[in-house]
């Protein structure tokens, strides 16, 4: 290994890198070299250790063992500053930005521009806006980050990483909350950076993206590196086999369930962020909602669920007038909502996995108000094995789980509770192929049992595959409705973007 | 031999002088004198705790200045079953004291009223006009008694002096200062203020020294070097002082005597003295104003 980098030589090299958390290994003796200027994909099941590796490379975690070489030199890489100094930047899986600061302030955080010690806020805001505009992200740099939807926040994080002029850029599931349109913008960005010679590490559960972007792909399983392959010489099936050590017949899974009686009817509903939405959901039916970020889908379902006030319109559920003023009311009437932001809306992060799973059903697990410990444990254990949730135990804090496993908890607590109408807002975000299949099977089970489903997904293939009917949202309004499989993606996209 | 002395508030100047007297007595008589007490005169439960702790340490006798008359009664009666108790400064609802050395705070309040009337008369020619009272904290027995004595004496002997403001602060000299400036603003005709303990007199004295109202006479209670300075400068018309040093000293001496089975007087009034600018240079006044503290 030469001291000066050869073009295409290793820029960053991990040697026998270990990461231990109390009790468990998240990474085991990983040897991996990233070549200068390549796009290197990283895949693996939920909890395989992908994010952990990224956090070690960015100095967020300190490795428990092994060495890291940067252009052949051993580096400590024990603080975020050390990583930033080398030009290593990352867009993390969970948005890590400051909700109380403005978009521009977040983009420049830690690297503010000053003159005579004073911040040049206007200059920074202008620059931030320029970057956002250039990337085609329609976000106002003067907004408070906390006022953006989680997808928009993800875009801010991306823009920030791109702006920092990094030499080594890591994307940890950047498309999870993005629609096809934004995904395309992101890909254009990545290709441009690639041309500028930036080394890129790309993590995703959507394997087709890897085939679209990457040159090499490494597979992690249970914290160990299984293989590194040339993308051109591998296939989805092979990658999946590497990841799960078993072969999956299909990734998309849809059981035909007959549509039954009318479950939900919404007429002219308006509320904060959306206007005049009408739709029907039948038992045994999946209604898919598609749209760009900020199109108003989440706002619509949250209003339906009683989280926000409706300003007009009416709804009937199971033939009765339906107007939930609080989520508790909606739940009592048989509605369940899996929210899009698991950290902010879904999980009690510093409480245990079991606790989170049982949160909706404590009333069932208790007698005379006292929770029966045995029933509590049994219910959590059953749900964890049912959904293959990987955690150090029921007591492990939800914060310590991998992103995909966190998502399973948020879904799991509603399966425990049960409902007539399930609303899933981006349910497969950050979920690995195997788990995705499990979730799809869960959908089928729910439908067979007579439930109806509203599915919001920014991943068009998913909505098209699973939904019976596809509704396209555009700027807070329902733009069109189609039988899901009878319409081409181009049409849907055009309607979603259409001005 | 150990004789703990339990005061009301270990953090105040006044009680430090009591402790100094007790300390000196301990040195002179060869007994060890642990110093205990609550951290605020309003902390009744804290003093009961200190008493219980003192009893638990098997002392020769205990000297205590009860924070509150009713509250300390039963605990002292209990404690007196195992050890001799000497009361100082203030009373308690018990007859279990072997001996009792006090300042009569009500009499102190009355003395303050008389001193105020005299000062007002000296300044304006007649004992008439609006006066105010500033109490440091609510719920403190000795301060309530001073206020009571002060008001009674005003009503009984000086109908011309009208109490227009009866303020209760939070124990801080800065608050005493703020209240006084506000009083002077709201009642420009005020002729007298009685600040009934040390921190209030410190604050009020400062306010008076700053704005030098022409017709105002300020009476303080207890003393420290700053108040002596105010007295000298004329910001304070008079100080009502007790003899805390003697209380502490005699408390320990009496306790030791009682423990040895000697007969001791049941009640001793250590008295209050009014000191004005004119009388402040007498030897007795100097002794009271500048107790030797070590």
């Amino acid at each position, binding site marked *: 290994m030469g001291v000066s980098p050869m073009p295409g030589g290793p820029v960053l090299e991990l040697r026998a890198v270990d990461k231990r958390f109390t*009790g468990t290994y998240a990474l085991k003796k990983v040897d991996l070299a990233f070549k200068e200027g390549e796009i290197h994909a990283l895949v693996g099941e939920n909890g395989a250790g992908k994010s952990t590796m990224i956090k070690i490379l960015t100095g967020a975690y300190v490795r428990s063992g092994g060495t890291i070489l940067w252009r052949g030199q051993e580096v400590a890489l024990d603080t975020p500053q050390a990583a930033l100094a080398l030009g290593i930047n990352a867009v993390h899986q969970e948005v890590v930005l400051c909700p109380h600061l403005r978009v521009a302030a977040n983009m420049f955080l830690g690297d503010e521009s000053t003159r005579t010690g004073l911040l040049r806020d206007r200059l920074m805001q202008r620059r931030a806006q320029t970057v956002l505009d250039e990337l085609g992200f329609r976000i106002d740099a003067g907004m408070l980050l906390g006022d953006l939807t989680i997808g928009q926040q993800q875009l801010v994080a991306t823009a920030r990483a791109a702006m920092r002029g990094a030499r080594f850029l890591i994307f940890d599931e950047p498309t999870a909350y993005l629609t096809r349109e934004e995904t395309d913008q992101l890909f254009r960005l990545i290709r441009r950076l690639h041309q500028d010679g930036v080394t890129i590490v790309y993590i995703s559960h959507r394997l087709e993206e890897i085939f679209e972007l990457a040159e090499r792909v490494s597979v992690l399983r249970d914290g160990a590196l299984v293989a590194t392959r040339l993308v051109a010489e591998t296939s989805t099936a092979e990658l999946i086999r590497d990841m799960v050590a078993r072969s999956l017949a299909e990734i998309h899974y849809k059981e035909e369930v007959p549509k039954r009686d009318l479950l939900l009817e919404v007429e002219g509903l308006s509320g904060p962020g959306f206007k005049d939405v009408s739709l029907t959901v039948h038992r045994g039916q999946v209604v898919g909602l598609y749209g760009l970020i900020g199109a108003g889908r989440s706002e619509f379902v949250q209003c339906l669920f009683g989280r926000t006030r409706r300003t007009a319109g009416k709804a009937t559920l199971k033939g009765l007038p339906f107007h939930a003023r609080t989520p508790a009311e909606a739940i009592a009437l048989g509605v369940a909502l899996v929210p899009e932001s698991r950290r902010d809306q879904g999980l009690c992060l510093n409480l245990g996995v079991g606790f989170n799973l049982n949160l909706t059903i404590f009333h069932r697990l208790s007698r005379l108000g006292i929770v029966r410990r045995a029933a509590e444990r049994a219910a959590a254990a059953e749900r964890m094995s049912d959904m293959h949730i990987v955690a150090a135990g029921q007591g492990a804090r939800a914060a310590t789980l991998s992103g995909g496993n966190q998502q399973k908890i948020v879904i799991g607590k509603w399966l425990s509770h049960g409902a007539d109408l399930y609303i899933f807002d981006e349910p497969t975000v950050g979920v690995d192929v195997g788990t995705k299949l499990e979730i799809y099977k869960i959908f089928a089970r729910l439908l067979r049992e007579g439930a109806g489903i509203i599915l919001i997904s920014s991943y068009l293939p998913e909505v098209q595959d699973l939904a019976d009917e596809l509704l396209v949202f555009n700027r807070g309004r329902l733009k069109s409705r189609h039988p899901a499989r009878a319409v081409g993606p181009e049409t849907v996209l055009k309607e979603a973007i259409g001005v | 031999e150990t004789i703990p002395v339990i005061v009301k508030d270990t953090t105040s100047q006044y009680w430090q002088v009591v402790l100094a007297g007790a300390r000196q007595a301990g040195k002179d008589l060869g007994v060890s004198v642990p110093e205990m007490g609550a951290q605020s005169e309003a902390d009744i439960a804290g003093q009961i705790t200190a008493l219980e702790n003192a009893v638990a340490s098997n002392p020769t006798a205990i000297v205590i200045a009860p924070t509150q008359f009713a509250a300390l009664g039963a605990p002292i009666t209990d404690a007196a079953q195992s050890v001799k108790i000497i009361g100082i400064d203030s009373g308690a609802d018990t007859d279990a004291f072997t001996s009792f050395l006090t300042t009569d705070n009500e009499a102190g309040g009355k003395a303050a009223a008389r001193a105020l009337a005299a000062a007002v008369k000296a300044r304006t020619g007649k004992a008439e006009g609006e006066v105010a009272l500033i109490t440091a904290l609510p719920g403190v027995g000795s301060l309530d008694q001073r206020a009571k004595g002060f008001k009674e004496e005003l009503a009984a002997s000086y109908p011309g002096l009208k109490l227009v403001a009866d303020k209760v602060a939070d124990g801080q000299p800065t608050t005493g200062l703020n209240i006084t400036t506000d009083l002077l603003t709201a009642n420009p005709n005020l002729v007298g203020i009685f600040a009934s303990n040390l921190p209030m007199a410190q604050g009020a004295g400062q306010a008076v020294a700053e704005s030098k109202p022409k017709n105002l006479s300020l009476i303080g209670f207890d003393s420290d070097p700053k108040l002596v300075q105010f007295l000298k400068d004329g910001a304070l018309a008079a100080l009502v002082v007790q003899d805390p040093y003697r209380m502490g000293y005699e408390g320990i001496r009496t306790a030791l005597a009682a423990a040895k089975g000697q007969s001791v007087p049941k009640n001793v009034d250590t008295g209050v003295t009014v000191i004005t600018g004119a009388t402040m240079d007498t030897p007795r006044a100097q002794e009271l104003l500048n107790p030797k503290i070590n």
Partner: protein
Amino acid sequence: MSESTATGALAGRKLKFGFLLNLTLLGLLVLLWVILGFATENFATYTNITNLLRQASLWAIIAIGQTFVIITAGIDLSVGAVVGLASTVVALLLVQGWPIWAACLVTLLMGVLIGVAHGFAIVQMRLPPFITTLATLTALRGIGLLMTSGQTIAGLPSSFSAFSRESFLAVPNLFWMVLLVAAPCYLLLHHSRLGRHLFAVGSNREAARLSGVSVGRTIYLAYIVSAGLAALAGILTASRIGIGVATTGEGWELQSVASSVIGGASLFGAVGSVIGPLLGAILLTTINNGANLLNVNPFWQRIITGGLIVIIVYFDQLRRRGR
């Protein structure tokens, strides 16, 4: 909630610190007791231990209530004022000849109402708990002083005062009251549905709400428990000092928060227990008691208290972090 201990890797470090790290708060407390038992003649006597328990009782009761509030990521600064007000109210009623049980009941009810008022301000008016309870701290003291014109209320029936001085089965009645409070609180917090909801609300209010938890009701519950227990502590204080004083309990708000935090609760919510504040209160009392018995200068006593708090919480944190 609980974190498992690290294995293997940190063995070298463990060896060095091992003996300290496995100590829990209880361990540190016992250690302190043993040291005091050897260092002073009188610590380990029956009289002193009962004194200590009696002294710790009042703080322990309000600290337990405070913990309920802290678990919801709130704070109740009014507990000291509620103690003072309750002591006056119960004393006024008793002096007017009410039977003891009725006077106590009415006072407890007043505590509950104060809790309801806090709940209303925090849930319905959406005020920050800190400001709400700071305002009631100020106002309730004023009300107590007004009711009594700043005077103390004496002349309580002797059977009422006797209660706090007596013991049952060699344990002071006051400490029995702590146990009587702690047991249902333990059930409520750690074994009931409502208790689960307290933790959920403290951890992530939005997630709890979206899971069907009635966040408002849960917050009401926490403040009602806190104010109710503070009222109980006020009644017991009146019994202990034999009078009603509106200013009693001054500064107890910070003491109770300290007991709770020393006992492991986090002011950011969702972490806390019933046993923690109990131990915290006993610990703070032990420090005072020990310093008195050792005849430490009262000024040094403060310095030592401050130092000990830092040291104990530090070691407890080390253990908690599990390394």
